[in-house]
């Protein structure tokens, strides 16, 4: 099992060149997919028999929630890679993913609240999913704040790695206890994103939207990672040549 691929992954310059080729494809495909999915979901699908047209918010709320959670999982894996194999690229990914994840977490919270208004008549509902998303937002802000508070890059890298691993251990516990707390107090309310009753013509735009958002996230991450590489490798000759 030759590990050359794994070690090459470690060299930021190699990633910078490779991602240069991927970037245009990513940009085009993600924006096209998102456009198609949202137009399809907004204009061409019939309204839900129960919720009327307000369910169309599902085409951004569900992808945003999925993204917020899977970005945190990706950050935890990047953290594990930083701590175990000490690959600098993994730490750059960890640093870069945090604000993107936080932005999608906020989007999921806001769209969830907006969706709650026509369905339940109040802006904020202590629904299990929304509350866990709110706590996930705290985890994101914690990592971003810790990254800003520690100035030496090596210490900040490992401290944020430890914090995101502790957070990822904490997420299932939070989900379990919030769900348990929710059923204790309110009984089974209408679950916000119930999918079994999704008619096929609603399901397809949703899947397209989810794919579009994931591609969009990869594109944004590649963009930010390239900048982080330039910033961290500013002493090397290839960056100086690139700049001048």
């Amino acid at each position: 099992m030759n590990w050359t691929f794994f070690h090459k992954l470690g060299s930021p310059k190699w990633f910078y060149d490779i991602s240069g080729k991927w970037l245009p494809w990513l940009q085009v495909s993600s924006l096209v997919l998102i456009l198609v999915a949202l137009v399809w979901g907004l204009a061409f699908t019939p309204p839900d028999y129960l919720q009327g047209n307000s369910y169309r918010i599902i085409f951004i709320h569900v992808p945003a929630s999925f993204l917020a959670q899977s970005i945190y999982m990706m950050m935890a894996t990047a953290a594990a890679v930083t701590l175990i194999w000490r690959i600098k690229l993994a730490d750059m990914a960890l640093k870069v993913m945090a604000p993107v994840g936080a932005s999608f977490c906020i989007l999921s919270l806001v769209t969830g609240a907006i969706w709650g208004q026509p369905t339940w008549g109040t802006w904020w509902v202590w629904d299990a999913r929304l509350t866990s998303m709110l706590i996930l937002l705290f985890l994101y802000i914690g990592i971003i704040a810790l990254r800003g508070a520690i100035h030496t890059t090596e210490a900040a890298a490992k401290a944020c790695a430890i914090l995101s691993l502790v957070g990822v251990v904490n997420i299932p516990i939070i989900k379990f206890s919030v769900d348990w707390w929710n059923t204790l107090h309110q009984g089974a309310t209408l679950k916000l994103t119930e999918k079994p009753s999704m008619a096929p013509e609603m399901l397809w735009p949703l899947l397209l939207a989810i794919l579009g958002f994931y591609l969009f996230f990869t594109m944004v991450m590649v963009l930010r990672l390239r900048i982080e590489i330039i910033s961290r490798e500013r002493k090397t000759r290839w960056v100086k040549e690139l700049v001048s």
Partner: protein
Amino acid sequence: MVRGGKMSRVDQPSMRGFSACLALIRRDLTLTFRSPGQAINPMAFFLMVATLFPLGIAPDREVLSELAAGVIWIGALLAVLLSLDSLFKSDQDDGALDQLLMSPHPLPLLVLAKVFSHWLTSGFCLTLMAPLLAIMLHLPSEAFSPLMMTLLLGTPVLSLAGSIGAALTVKVQRGGVLLTLLSLPLYIPVLIFATGAVNAAMQNMPYTGHILWLSVFLILGVCLAPLAIAGALRVINE
């Protein structure tokens, strides 16, 4: 010139690991007794939180007894957070943390001793004070025993989880707010199950499930938290 002799090496290092922990606990307890101001703050804060709520909401009995469990637990949670800030920072400032890192004994064990001594001076005292506050907040009498049980099981978890944040922010100048931000997500499950137990007892429903879950968190905390704390201390002090 009196020739200073050398102290002899200990032969069975494993047994000495616990004596090192005992020495650390004894050191921290003497430190707290020498300057008790550090230990009084969380208790005064706890009492103050319990007096603010009736002033803020309503002094009558039904409202307060409904809120009592939540108020006591949130007060205890914030008081523990208050006292966590100086846990490692005082050692960092006078160089004692380097000696801790240089010790041949496993760091997680020493860190567990430090967190235990912190719990003794903060969480445990809050638990002893809790009945006083429960009376002030008209907590029904049958809810007293679950309150004490949840506090006894829950406050060590608060100390353990909060120490991870304390270790991560040991070199951050004004790290108090950041410490709170890092520790709150870890406190939420404990708060949910603890207040759940007391409220269940108030509606005289069985609360053993909640207590068992709290002990699960305690065991999880005792096993995993020292590893994270030791890792964080090593990483920050590179």
